[in-house]
């Protein structure tokens, strides 16, 4: 008689370890994409920030669905030319953007007054053409904007994005805080993972829900206290190297011919989309 096996559910600690490992894995994947030999990867970060941001603005201001969908198509073409698979975009961007925006857009389908095109059985709620149109506009705008933003993040090292923001006039303090957050989030992730692995090595069986909650709260407390300690140490390390409350950065960018061409292309498309509506 075959031995009866029962699938064991992952406990809270295991799930946390897996989650933390996935975050680190995703960061590594994003970094490998940013170093791929694609179209957008070859461009200066400032061109991408300005160009993609102008296309996001064009999508947000457009009043015609054809224009928004054309911009969405452009985003997919840019993704393909930059060696980013639509499957990756679908999993990481489109699905979550759809679910998030869909939750916001859903009521509009029913509450926007207008021509009724369908009535839900049992509930008898009316779906109006105008409501459906509003929801479609919202979702398509968000999907298009999110795709352009994802293209920037997937094709540019975070350090380059920060430097580009700085050269485009974003205040130094803001850029430095973003940079340090990105830097230390990985250290804290590693600390958290080691903490949970150490717990896992001392836990047998399934933890009751109450115990899991207690463990989570205690872990948050310990991590918070470690991050306070770390921030104090980092501040001293900065002071020791001459930090006096204001940060100075070195901006290292050189625009090439292809960057100027790409910038002109992005801006022309954005203006065209804006003019066409």
């Amino acid at each position: 008689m075959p031995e009866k096996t029962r699938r064991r559910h992952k406990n809270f600690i295991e799930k946390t370890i897996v989650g933390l490992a996935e975050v680190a894995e995703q960061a590594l994947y994003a970094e490998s994409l940013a170093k791929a030999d694609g179209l957008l990867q070859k461009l200066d970060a400032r061109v991408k920030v300005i160009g993609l941001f102008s296309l996001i603005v064009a999508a947000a201001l457009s009043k015609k669905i054809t224009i928004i969908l054309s911009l969405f198509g452009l985003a997919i073409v840019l993704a393909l030319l930059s060696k980013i698979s639509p499957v990756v975009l679908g999993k990481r961007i489109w699905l979550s953007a759809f679910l998030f925006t869909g939750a916001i857009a859903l009521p509009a389908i029913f509450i926007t007054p207008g021509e009724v095109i369908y009535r839900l059985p049992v509930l008898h709620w009316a779906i109006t053409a105008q409501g459906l149109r509003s929801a479609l506009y919202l979702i398509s705008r968000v999907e298009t904007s999110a795709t352009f933003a994802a293209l920037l993040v997937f094709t540019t090292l975070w350090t380059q994005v920060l430097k580009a923001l700085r050269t485009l006039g974003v205040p130094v303090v803001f850029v430095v805080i973003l940079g340090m957050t990105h830097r230390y989030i990985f250290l804290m992730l590693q600390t958290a993972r080691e903490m949970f692995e150490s717990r896992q090595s001392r836990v047998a069986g399934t933890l009751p829900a109450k115990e899991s909650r207690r463990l989570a709260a205690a872990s948050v407390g310990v991590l918070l206290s470690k991050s306070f300690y770390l921030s104090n140490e980092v501040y001293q390390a900065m002071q020791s190297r001459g930090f006096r409350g204001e940060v100075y950065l070195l901006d290292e960018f050189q625009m090439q011919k292809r960057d100027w061409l790409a910038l002109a292309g992005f801006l022309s498309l954005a203006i065209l989309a804006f003019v066409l509506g």
Partner: protein
Amino acid sequence: MAVAFGVQNVTFRYNDIIALDDISLTLEAGKRYAVLGANGSGKSTMLRLLDGLYFADSGTVTAFGEALTEERFADDDFAYSFRQRVAFVFQNPDVQLFNPTVFDEIAFAPLQLRWEKQCIRSRVAEMLDLMEIAHLKDRSPHRLSGGEKKRVALASVLVLEPQVLLLDEPTAALDPKSQSQVIDFLIDWAGSAKTIITATHDLDIIEDIADECLIFQRGKLVAEGKPQTILRNETLLRQTNLIHAHRHAHAGGEIHSHPHLHHDHTHDE
């Protein structure tokens, strides 16, 4: 010889806990010092006082004849001049490497001291070559190995060409190869008549990195002397928890347990 640091009757507390208790010492310029002591003996606190990161609750600390006080550091000219002359390498390189890339890390200090940008670029390039980390310049510090992080941390302070280098446990948590790279570097760097003050409890390295030893225990300075003298004083080392009893084998096959130093250890009787 000129005095780099003077410490007179210094006491420092973390809230109610005394970290340094009535310490007085003089550190001469151009010499190499090892600050020895077990965990919690006050070594790291001493280094932070010398770097003007902490200020004494009582007593005075002077650097190059000037008192290190909060009021003095409020003066930009003094602060910039001091930060250029005195560099501190923290024990945990993750604390020290807070910039997005290795290049930014090394450029950070000269940028804060308002060096010319062209000068910074060339100086950073020199440091990258000197520390053999040019291939890491665009990497994020959190992706580096322990040895690489330590070399970047050293480069990030040596870029200023300081006169004094304060090191907190420079070989802690490093593999043997990385340890010897750091030690070799310190030996070469000290050749240019710099002052090096190293806090450590690694007795195996002190003859290589120090001309003088200062032994701390529970916030007090309990002994001073040449490394060779200190290393022969087994009673002192045992009392200050720098050596401990453990089982070990001799070439003749004898296995026994007692406190000892690992090098030059023989039994006459």
